[in-house]
């Protein structure tokens, strides 16, 4: 639409000259006195007796009127107050009742599945984010809560393992459920057990090794997660590589935020993997992963290792009110094509539908966005066809942004298209169409083309689409890169609103080092940033720092992940936006330094 045209059209609406002069003439008059009411005292008489009587009557009437008016006003005020209190109380009670007893919609599908849906829409912001990964991943699954963040802190440790034949030193990572307070920035281990060492013992709620760490979802003061339960946690450390499908289960957990309990809400059967869950319409919707086959290979400790292959996945609904579970969708594995039913990484609730991504059956076009109706159980576009194919999907409110698989344009170049899909109308809109940056050399990439932002959408909110790119410094090479981390905000028409230099630097470095046997090898390390979410007016950046050194073996340097945040308003209006740390997990080396001090 041409807005200038619209503006011009509206501007052509004007008062007619006659109307204009009529209004102006009225406005030129002095302030109009209130017109005399009918039956008022006549004026202009010179009869003094009449005047006296008139004045007296006026006084009496005025006094009477004032008295009446006062009484009436008092009565009205009292009445209004009573009505207001009664109405307010009734509304408050109704709201309170509605909150405690949300409207239940009883649904029975054709296949007999029954659901009791409430009217509580999903809060897509309650689901957790995955921080930007690095070779040493120190934080995972960050989850915003009311006054801070929950996340898994990952620290390396060594343990002695005896397999019955000999003792080994086993390198492992310990995952600790941690809370960071937004106001103070202080972190706390989510375990309330007195004198607990948080060492993975069976009673510790923060470091339990019975359950794998997983995406956390904050809802109504609890943390929910769908994860793997190890049936033999005594083999901690080696169990994850030695477990068979029958050794693991997929379960829905509920963590208390004060570290007092972990409750197993539902058991979805054998399987391994961590998955997302969302809360929508009174249910926790869970993806349970299946591994039905396993190939055994030799392992020096366990003497066998199971290579898991996808056995498909299932979508379960857990009713919060009753604790009943229902299997609502099943995408089981195909022995011929292992990846066909790989579990989705997009799960999103909007209105009467659940949206998820699903592999194409023939593995030709990557993934597709699909939806299942909660009212009928029907999958949109049938079992074979998805709503739209694409990768790197983002969902927000009533829209999804998808990047398609690469295509060839007329010049035979690889291009990437980005589409917006409206959930209500299912209309697709092409937002960007760009050459695929990854196919270019470093030199080509520096000269890039239209706009590399357009293939790097990382977050959405009600107003903007957020994209990030790294702008190389002069002299950077492919193996020794330094670049400015830039963020661009687009509107939903694809128009660039603002490009912002975050002040962060992206670094990529290759280093040649020597191993214990004296062999040289090249290793890559990077210091990178990405947008992980926009939540409640704040934009969050994940920072994966891989431990930089001026030389030597970079592999042994401790790195860490951080999450920083900044107000979107400040980003738009300030030249130097201030970034704050959501939290900075302490690495083991730093902990050791602290202990030494």
């Amino acid at each position: 639409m041409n807005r200038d045209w619209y503006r011009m059209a509206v501007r052509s609406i004007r008062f007619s000259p006659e109307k204009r002069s009529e209004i102006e003439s009225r406005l030129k008059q002095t302030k109009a006195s209130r017109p005399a009411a009918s039956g008022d005292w006549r004026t202009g008489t010179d009869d003094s007796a009449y005047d006296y009587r008139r004045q007296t009557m006026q006084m009496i009437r005025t006094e009477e009127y004032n008295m009446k008016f006062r009484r009436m006003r008092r009565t009205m005020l009292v009445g209004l107050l009573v009505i207001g209190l009664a109405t307010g109380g009734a509304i408050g009670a109704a709201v309170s009742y509605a909150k405690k007893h949300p409207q239940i919609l009883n649904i029975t599908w054709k296949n007999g599945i029954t659901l009791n849906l409430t009217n509580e829409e999903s809060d897509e912001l309650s689901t957790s984010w995955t921080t930007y990964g690095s070779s040493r991943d120190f934080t995972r699954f960050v989850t915003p809560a009311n006054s801070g963040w929950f996340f898994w802190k990952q620290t390396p440790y060594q343990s002695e393992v005896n397999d019955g034949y000999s003792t080994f030193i086993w390198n492992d990572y310990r995952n600790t459920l941690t809370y960071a307070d937004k106001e103070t920035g202080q972190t706390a281990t989510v375990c309330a057990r007195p004198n607990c060492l948080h060492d993975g013992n069976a009673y510790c709620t923060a470091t339990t090794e019975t359950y794998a760490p997983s995406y956390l979802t904050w809802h109504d003061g609890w943390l929910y997660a769908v994860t793997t339960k190890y049936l033999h946690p005594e083999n901690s450390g080696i169990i994850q590589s030695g477990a068979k499908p029958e050794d693991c289960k997929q379960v829905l957990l509920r963590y208390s935020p004060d570290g007092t309990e972990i409750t197993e809400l539902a058991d979805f059967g054998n399987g391994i993997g961590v998955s997302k869950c969302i809360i929508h319409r009174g249910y926790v919707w869970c993806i349970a992963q299946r591994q039905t086959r396993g190939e055994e290979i030799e392992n020096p400790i366990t003497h066998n290792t199971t290579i898991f292959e996808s056995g498909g996945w299932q979508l379960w609904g857990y009713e919060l009110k009753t604790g009943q579970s229902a299997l609502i969708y099943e995408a089981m594995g195909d022995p011929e094509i292992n990846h066909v039913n790989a579990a989705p990484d997009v799960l999103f609730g909007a209105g009467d539908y659940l949206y998820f991504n699903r592999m194409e059956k023939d593995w030709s076009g990557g993934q597709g966005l699909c939806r299942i109706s909660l009212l009928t159980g029907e999958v949109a576009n049938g079992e074979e066809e998805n709503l739209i194919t694409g990768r790197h999907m983002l969902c927000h409110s009533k829209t999804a942004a998808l990047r398609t698989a690469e295509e060839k344009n007329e010049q035979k170049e690889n291009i990437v298209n980005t589409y917006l899909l409206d959930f209500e109308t299912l209309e697709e809109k092409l937002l960007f169409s760009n050459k695929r940056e990854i196919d270019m050399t470093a030199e080509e990439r520096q000269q890039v083309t239209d706009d590399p932002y357009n293939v790097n959408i990382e977050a959405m909110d009600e107003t903007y689409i957020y994209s990030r790119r790294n702008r190389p410094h002069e002299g950077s090479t492919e193996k020794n890169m330094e670049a400015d981390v830039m963020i661009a905000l687009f509107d939903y028409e694809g128009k660039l609103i603002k490009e912002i230099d975050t002040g962060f630097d992206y670094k990529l470095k290759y280093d040649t080092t020597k191993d214990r046997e004296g062999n040289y090898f090249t290793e890559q390390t990077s210091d990178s940033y990405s947008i992980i979410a926009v939540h409640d007016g704040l934009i969050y950046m994940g920072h994966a720092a891989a431990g930089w050194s001026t030389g030597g073996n970079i592999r042994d340097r401790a790195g860490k992940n951080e999450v920083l945040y900044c107000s979107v308003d400040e980003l738009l209006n300030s030249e130097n936006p201030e970034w704050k740390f959501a939290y900075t997990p302490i690495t083991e080396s730093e902990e050791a330094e602290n202990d030494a001090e």
Partner: protein
Amino acid sequence: MLSKENIALYAFRKYGDTALQAAFCCLGNQADAEDVAQDVFFALHRHPREFNDDEHLKAYILRAVINRCNNLHRKLKRRIRLSLDQLKESELIDREGSIDDIIRMIKALPAPYNAVVYLHDCEGYTIREIAKMLGKKENTVSSQLRRGHEKLRMEITDSGVLL
């Protein structure tokens, strides 16, 4: 500081047409739009007040017009619009060849999108300013603006008018 001295006349001469355009966009009806617009200035004439500057005055006038339009909507419980023929006869729009397009565009926009689109596209207010003016959240205004544009575009596309 603009004095109270004949502020209504000054305001009408400066923003009379703006008020009419805003009312027309909200109501889609010439007669009601004129009534609402002139009532705003008459009210200001009866109860003059001071303004910091012209922008303050303009914002006041627009806010008053939109409030009165909302009141009228509530009162009538439905939108009042003239038929195409009535509007053609109104001689309100003297631009040849554009009248049908204007009618379509304005009719395409229901409340509350009409006011937001008008303030943004015609008056050039930012989302933040509109939010402050209408007492809404910025996100709400932004969302309404986006949806208003979408509805406008859909209407124009459906009607086959190429803009």
